């Protein structure tokens, strides 16, 4: 449920706002719905990755040209050690890492802040 909520709310707000919109979404939804710290981190990270890599892959498949491959080439600098890796995989890994870290820690922050509020109430 949490996963789906992040996906939907994150998708809508990312469409409208800056790249880090996924962070407040994970924060708020985890505050509200997360069961535990681990649950918050991993569900947020997974949802963020699904959203970015999923939508990115969709755009990649819808495009006429392998732009992902060209951008990946800039990051590898044509290094032979990385040439076996398809560009889309490399850029998906970077995208996933960036959004996974940001959304994971944002979700974790949400559930931790909730815990802090609860310690103050009790």
């Amino acid at each position, binding site marked *: 449920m949490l996963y789906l909520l992040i996906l939907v709310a994150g998708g809508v707000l990312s469409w409208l706002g800056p790249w880090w919109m996924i962070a407040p979404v994970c924060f708020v939804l985890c505050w509200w719905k997360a069961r535990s710290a681990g649950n918050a981190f991993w569900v947020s990270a997974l949802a963020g990755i699904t959203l970015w890599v999923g939508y990115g892959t969709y*755009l990649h498949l*819808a495009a*006429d040209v392998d732009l992902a491959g060209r951008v990946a080439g800039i990051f590898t600098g044509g290094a032979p050690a990385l040439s076996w890796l398809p560009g889309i995989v490399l850029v998906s890994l970077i995208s996933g890492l*960036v959004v996974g870290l*940001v959304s994971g820690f944002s979700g*974790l922050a949400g559930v931790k802040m909730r815990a802090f509020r609860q310690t103050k109430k009790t």
Partner: protein
Amino acid sequence: MKLFRYFWPFFVALALIYVFDRSWALVPPLGRVFNPFGGFWTNGISRLPADGELVLPGLRDEVVVHYDDNAVPHIFAQNDDDLYFAQGYVIARDRLWQMEFYALVAAGRLTEVVGAAALDYDRFNRRIGMARTAAAITDKLKNDPTADRILRAYAAGVNAYIEQLDYADLPVEYKLLNYRPEPWSPYKSILMLMNMRYTLNGGSNDPRLTNVLAKYGPEVVADLFPAYPAVESPIVPAGTEWPFKAEVPPAVPDTVAVLPDNGLLASRIPAPRPEIGSNNWAIGGSRSATGLPILANDPHLQLTLPSIWYQMQLCSPDVNVYGVALPGTPAIIIGFNKDVAWGVTNVGSDIMDFYRIRFRDKALDAYWHGDQWKPTTAHVETFKVKGGTEVRDTLYYTHHGPIVYHKAERAARARGIPVGYAMRWVANETDGADVLTFYYLNRAKNYEDYRKALSHFTAPAQNFVFSSNGGDIAITSNGKLPLKWKGQGRFLLDGASPAHDWQGWIPKEQNPAVKNPERGYVSSANQFPADTTYPYYLDWKFAHSSRALRINERLDAMKNATADSLRMLQNDEYNVDARRILPHLLPALAADDSIRRSAEFDAIDRWDHRNTADAVGATVFERWQSELLAAIWSDEFTQDERMLYPSLDRTYALIENEPEARWFDKVHTEDTVETRDDIIRESFRATIAKLKERYGEMSPRTWAWGKVKGTRIMHLVPNFTSFGRRHITNGGGNGVVNATSATHGPSWRMVVQLDKEWPVAYGLYPGGQSGNPGSKYYDNMIDRWAKGELDTLLFMKSAHDSSARLRHRILMKPEN
């Protein structure tokens, strides 16, 4: 501590957002760039509507833009203001990043987007005066109602596009380099043209020839660096009478050069690049199948992505023209309309000279000239370096021009401009209005209109080829050409002597030109504009004559020619140098048994002199020529001493006529005297050894010319190698008509067959209309270009023309 237990993930998340939101050294802001909702991913899909209506404040009336199947826009406006507004808008839509990048280069502002690494480059560009000159030209053009109007309309169109952009719409280069476009202005359009001036005229042989003079004296210079080549076919056919009374050229002074005080000058100013050149020609009705002229042009420039050219059609009640534009500049530069066609090649005469300046003292505020101290003008240039710091640099001007470098500093050595020398350069002339030449050519109906249009042009001088459906063909070496004494500026000049100043200008109507010559065609390939009967001095050296010779011998033989005959000539790969010199080289090789029996000798002996992609003989010949030149000259004209080699033509003449010349002997082998044939054999062996080392044993596959030449078309940002195209297989070479080398070549090929009713035209360039690496129109023409094909150009009569090739239609509407 307890608080920390609850709050740390919050701060980690904030820190991550901060880190991924900004760029770190060469790493772009990863969060922004990799976000699929706005980062690079979105450049792979078109976010702008391909069809439909746009409301654009600034328009006066509606404008219709049709896009054809090659993404070429056909703009139909109801007045000229709207026409150039729409041109700016449409080019920005495809090429915004590229045009702004060029403007930053010419303005010496690259440090603002790439950081301190570009400081030397920027400083050089400011010191040769490009930004200041562009500003002065822009100021002057404000007083020219027509130029001012089109430049401002164009800028308004570009800005209308920029204002619509949000981050997701930005060209991907902005995202990767992490900056945003600035507003466009007429000044930036002029900067674009300054870039062209530098590209076409930004080199000089003067320092290196001066070193030769210092070491060997005037007799050797006169012998090895003659004022006219042994074999040449000038633009104005030899024997043409000059239809004017020439002014008396200035007298040659007693001293023609200033030599460096001690030793040879350590200058490394780039020599004029032989790859920068072009071909154009027009045949008259007597040679064409239609009975009317056919015109062809292919400018040779560095091949880049995005391409330097952009195809478009511009139509208003005042004009209907098709051709290529330079991104960032209004009007069509090379093209045709219903009645006329025109094209350009570079003249390349000597329009850059260096004057040794004697300053009064270290303050650099006065210099000696004409027996008195004259004040310099100082300007402080400020460089903003990405990241916040600022660097200042003072630029000093004499009446000659800017002191390019005045103290021995690292940048001076790197870019190689003589220290303490002022530069006189035609590119810093601020009169005229180049942009008006194109504005009026776009509207020309006949020869008289063509000549009037040319009168506005300043620099860099171009050979404007012309044809009309009235049956005229013509070519004019057009632009400001300094009036010089014979040989003025071959060497470094004396900044104190008024006799060494430029003496004025050749009257424009006396520039080399020819109309409807008897031979039935006009042509140019950057060779001498005229033979030695021309009354003015232009330069002692022009591009090697091989392309011109081949073009003219093929045009001489043409009868009933069609547009396709001219297309085939553009792709001609016959090597006239090989035809000229191999009969003198091969016997020397054959005299040596071990060479004669080798497969490599066999390859060049049986070669048909064509630089085709599969020719192994072409590989051996091309590599051998540079080896041969070095074998003859590098011992006496050493690169360490920065000396100029004699030209290819002079070298061939030496081989042909002076087998006993002392230059063949190697100076550092004291006991032996090498003969011409020794040098020929030795250089051949060295060539083969190097080829084997690099490509292995000779085979038709590994030594094929197309593979060894390895043509590539790279992105303007050198690091973005994956945005370029490598390993393009085609034939060609520096000295052949299809002048495709590894990095330079025909940047636009056009053939226009004029007609009383409606012209038929063909064209193609090695790239694509879109500057977006995520578009299928980014590089879609490259493969056809490599094969030498041309597209039939869709030249519409009106916005209501129907064609199966039209794909999209945009209606631009003014704000109510």
